[in-house]
């Protein structure tokens, strides 16, 4: 029988486990880490704000639009905006769609089950019929390829779900930054606690989705679908975006004969917690878009911190990526703690043992992530 010693862990990341059990986070505490994490989350909050507004706009207003030329304009098309758009002086909304596709492709279990159910088929069918009522060409297309529009409707649902998820996350990060500015956030565990509280508070928000077609409202995800913020958006999001994601074409070969990509999606580890920050800015590395967007909204103190580094402005996006990964480990910490079988500060040995096993399980998964680099 193995003796359980609270102070020792034989796991390669044992140090991290002990720190978490002592109330710490995956990321070691420290003023630089704190400043980077809060600063980058501030700009992330700003970017997410733009992302979720656009995702919800696309889901609600661009439902089954075949040529959404102005889908990134949120309904406000004007000449100056168009010129900015062409000059590429804009938020790279493509990245939010990339995250949405990651969620869609990897799937959120309960949402997927609903989307494959006859209930959804019936609701979607009604919306589609309404949408293509006066468009015989689309009607013909629908008859020839019967799954085309329903599949698009499912995609719209994911647009909406991710938008709703980020609608909660964005203010959470902005408030965090405000609290940091007021001196209320003093350590990494404070950051984790803030996020965890935010997640817990929003955990049971229902996820719903409805579209207006010619003044009539069509519910695609009703409240009866019983989908909730934490389990049906946050957790699948972490799984799909933080852990799995897609292999970057710029670093991994899609060649089937080379077999570099696992046939099992569960084995994918190309997500935000795993990606190497060095190739950021290069070809075939989609997160560059996010780093670029965040670069435009950095708080002044963080920008100066970056400018003071060896390469200054030149490699800012790589530095942002490193800080971003640190901050995402804080969000992951919050998720891990929130999902732990027992409170992490429990006194009961059996609960501690269960928590330890739970944490070790997570550390196994994080062994090849960027976590060891930060510890």
């Amino acid at each position, binding site marked *: 029988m193995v003796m359980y010693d609270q102070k020792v862990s034989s796991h390669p990341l044992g140090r991290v486990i002990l720190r978490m059990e002592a109330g710490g986070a995956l990321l070691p505490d420290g003023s630089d880490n704190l400043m980077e994490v809060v600063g980058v989350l501030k700009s992330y909050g700003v970017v997410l704000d733009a992302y979720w507004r656009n995702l919800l706009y696309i889901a609600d207003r661009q439902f089954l639009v075949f040529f959404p030329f102005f889908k990134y304009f949120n309904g406000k098309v004007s000449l100056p905006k168009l010129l900015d758009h062409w000059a590429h002086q804009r938020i790279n909304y493509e990245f939010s769609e990339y995250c949405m596709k990651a969620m869609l492709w990897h799937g959120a279990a309960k949402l997927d089950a609903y989307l494959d159910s006859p209930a959804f088929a019936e609701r979607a069918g009604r919306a589609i019929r309404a949408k293509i009522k006066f468009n015989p060409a689309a009607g013909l297309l629908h008859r020839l390829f019967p799954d085309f529009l329903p599949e698009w409707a499912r995609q719209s649902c994911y647009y909406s779900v991710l938008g709703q998820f980020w609608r909660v996350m964005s203010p959470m990060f902005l408030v965090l930054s405000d609290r940091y500015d007021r001196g209320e956030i003093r350590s990494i565990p404070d950051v984790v606690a803030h996020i965890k509280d935010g997640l817990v508070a929003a955990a049971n928000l229902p996820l719903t989705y409805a579209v207006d077609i010619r003044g009539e409202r069509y519910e695609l995800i009703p409240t009866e679908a019983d989908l909730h913020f934490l389990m049906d958006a946050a957790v699948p999001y972490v799984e799909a975006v933080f852990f799995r994601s897609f292999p970057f074409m710029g*670093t991994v070969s899609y060649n089937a004969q080379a077999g570099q990509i696992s046939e099992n999606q569960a084995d994918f580890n190309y997500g935000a917690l795993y990606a*190497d920050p*060095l*190739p*950021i*800015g*290069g070809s075939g590395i989609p997160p560059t878009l996010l780093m670029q967007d965040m670069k435009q909204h950095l708080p002044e103190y963080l920008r100066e911190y970056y400018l003071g580094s*060896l*390469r*200054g402005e*030149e*490699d*800012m*996006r*790589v530095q942002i990526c490193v800080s971003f990964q640190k901050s995402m480990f804080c969000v992951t910490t919050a998720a891990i703690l929130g999902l732990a079988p027992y409170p992490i500060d429990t006194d009961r040995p059996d609960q501690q043992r269960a928590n330890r096993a739970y944490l070790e399980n997570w550390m196994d998964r994080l062994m090849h992530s960027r976590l060891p680099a930060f510890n």
Partner: protein
Amino acid sequence: MLSLLVWLPILGAAVVGFWPAGAPAVWPRRIALSVASVGLALSAVLAFLYNPADGGLQFREFVPWMTSLGLSYELGIDGLSLPLLLLNAFLVWIAIFSSDENVQRPRLYYGLLLLLCGGVVGAFATQNALLFFLFYELELIPLYLLIAIWGGPRRNYAATKFLLYTAISGIMILAAFFGLAGLAGIANYSYETLAVHNLPLATQFLLLGAVLVAFGIKIPLVPFHTWLPDAHVEASTPVSLLLAGVLLKLGTYGLLRFGLGFFPEAWSAAAPWLASWAVVSVLYGCMTAIAQKDMKKMVAYSSIGHMGYILLAAAAATPLSLLGAVAQMVSHGLISGLLFLLVGVVYKKTGTRDIDVLCGLLAPERGLPFIGSLMILAVMASAGIPSMVGFVAEFIIFRASYAVFPVQTLLCILGTGLTAVYLLILINRAFFGRLPAQFANLPQVRWSERLPGLAIALLVVFLGLQPQWLVRWSEATTAALVAGRPALAGALPAQAERIDTVAVRRAHTP
């Protein structure tokens, strides 16, 4: 005018060298840079005033000096020297500009660079064989010191080797000149008088042999080349740039001026052997380069290969091939200068030149993307991709030499293929791939480090697109160089038809 061009750098060297030691360290650099700029401007004026239609000497200056020795201060340039003077002025400016701003002992360093420049200009501009020898030797001392003082860890070894080799080269040159003057009974060492003689062929061969060995060391040709990789590896970047870009050209210049110019009959007779020697040099240089792991060594061996083309062209000795030789001198000067410059930046930032260690330097934020892009351009230029100057020069050489030496020419073309192999290995290993963690914190590349490379690269592309600018200076001269000679090329068309079948077959069988 020419005197100004020769003495200005030497004067500048004196000024820099005796600049008060207490003054800020930036002054030697500024002075050197201004002198180089004036030199560049003067050379440009010279080119502007030069009449390309006249194949003879222009801007002649003559001051009797030690006439009893046959040594006079005679200057003058023709279409053979002018492009090299321009190249020299440009590359010296680049070399000074790209020198490390915090170089140790700046006064000595910049002084020596200017002295080197003066020596080279003198050697290209003089019209007296003894004066050439003096300038030729004058240029050695600063180069030796530049390698021996500011070189890498094995600098003493490399510098000594360089010195010994080049001293032998100098002695052979001197011996050849003395022999020629003595045997032909000429008391004046002016080129014009030396070129007119009627020595028996056997004697000519002997003297030509001395000239070939002397300049074969300088060019360098296999097997006299082993000083070059060592010298390049140990020399600092600006010195490597000058060494490859300008100083090797002294060798090919001497070969054309003295070998072909003084001993035309022997040259014609030896031409097939020279062409074969060129093939050996080209293939040897290329094959050896493939196995190199040190980027600088690789580029150094590539120089050996590329200089071999010039020997091929010189051996063919038609007006067109000689024009190709001049073009190749300029082209190689620019391209190898660019390569050494870029390798220098890589070395400065990463601390290594080993292509097995380097990786992923194209990474846009933490790597050296701009340097990498220029490197790709330089490599492609060196491999003879059209639209860059390397292709123009090589095509002229191949086109012209094929008429005379088909087999050798086709074998030399193989060399361009091999060039692509090793340079591609260089790019693929060092610049493609993922940037490893050990190179994650490379220092920033400043614009002042990018500009020299960019300038050379633009010139490489410009001359590649507008080759008339490359050849217009030398057309008349190269025609004149072979005008009085037995028509080697003229005798061949009938023969060429016979040979080309063999040639093509040989080219296919390897």
